[in-house]
């Protein structure tokens, strides 16, 4: 019995190369890419809508890639807020990958965009393994999912820049203590930022934009 060393490349190397190509394209076009991951129904779309409004009022041109396994509900919502949007149905696939994002960007006016939000399929597992080439990544959860979400999905939270805890207005109603989520996150990702939001009532949106590196000056 003996061992033979294999000259093998990383099996996901192609994915990493495509993500890097996306990163270069976004940089060349001076577009800030934001990857929005999160649980189903956590409020990803609502938060992006609010940010489109805030950033748009400041004169920024916002683009969106609305990914869902089927349908165009999120895409239509983004269009109604004035974003340049492309609908991306993954057809039962549970996450986006850099290749699909590359093709989606072909259909967006990248030359005129300032910011591109890429809303992933609702899922707290698979998207973490497929980088898209964005400058920032945020993960959205909401109080209605319970206060144990970080410890149930530690790997995605351990490696993401920003945790958004949405629906803070419902925390008392569902008996959830936001502090528990915040302390769980601090334990596994001490350098991550936490932002508390209530997208429905437009609360915390400026904090989220600040965490993403945008300072809005308008007073919507």
């Amino acid at each position, binding site marked *: *019995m*003996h*061992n*033979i*060393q*294999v*000259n*093998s*490349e*990383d*099996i*996901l190397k192609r994915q990493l190369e495509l993500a890097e190509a996306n990163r270069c394209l976004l940089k060349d076009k001076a577009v800030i890419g934001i990857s929005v991951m999160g649980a189903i129904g956590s409020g990803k779309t609502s938060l992006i809508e609010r940010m489109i409004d805030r950033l748009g009022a400041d004169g920024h041109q916002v683009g969106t890639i609305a990914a869902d396994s089927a349908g165009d509900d999120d895409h239509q919502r983004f269009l109604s807020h004035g974003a340049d949007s492309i609908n991306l149905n993954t057809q039962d696939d*549970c996450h986006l990958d850099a290749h699909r994002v590359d093709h989606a960007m072909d259909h967006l006016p990248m030359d005129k965009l300032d910011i591109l939000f890429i809303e992933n399929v609702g899922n707290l*597992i*698979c998207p*973490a*393994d497929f980088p898209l080439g964005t400058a920032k990544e945020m993960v959205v959860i909401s109080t209605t999912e319970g206060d144990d979400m970080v*410890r149930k999905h*530690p*790997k*995605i939270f*351990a*490696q993401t820049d920003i945790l958004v805890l949405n629906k803070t207005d419902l925390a008392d109603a569902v008996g959830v203590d936001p502090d528990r989520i915040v302390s769980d996150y601090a*334990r*596994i*990702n*001490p*350098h991550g930022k936490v932002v508390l939001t209530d997208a429905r009532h437009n609360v915390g949106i400026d904090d989220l934009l600040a965490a993403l590196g945008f300072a809005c000056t308008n007073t919507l």
Partner: protein
Amino acid sequence: MHEYSLASELINALLPQVEGIEGRIVGVILKKGELRILSDQALANAFELLAEGTTLENARLIIEPVLVSVSCPSCGYQGPVDHASDEAFHFAVPVLSCPQCQSKVEMKAGRELFVDSLTVQTPAGTEAS
């Protein structure tokens, strides 16, 4: 659910490389970064099924973890990180922070997925190399 497609890519990449190897391939050593969200059991099962009928069909997929390794731009530390863990709940994640000075760190290893080596059973009477 990506384990089948990854096992398929792995086998397709390996088959041309194992052509001409003397002996029976009984093990494929796969290195997996600990931040990869992939099930070892599902990967091994997928490999076993997809390798049927190929020269890899007698091989067992052996998955060895690659621990997260970082470098700290603040104090110069290089090496592994601490883990937040609770074994009772299958909870063990590397904390991406410098274990010496608690600064933000750059990750150097921990997300890879590659075949490291093969274990080959040499035909009787042949010298193992």
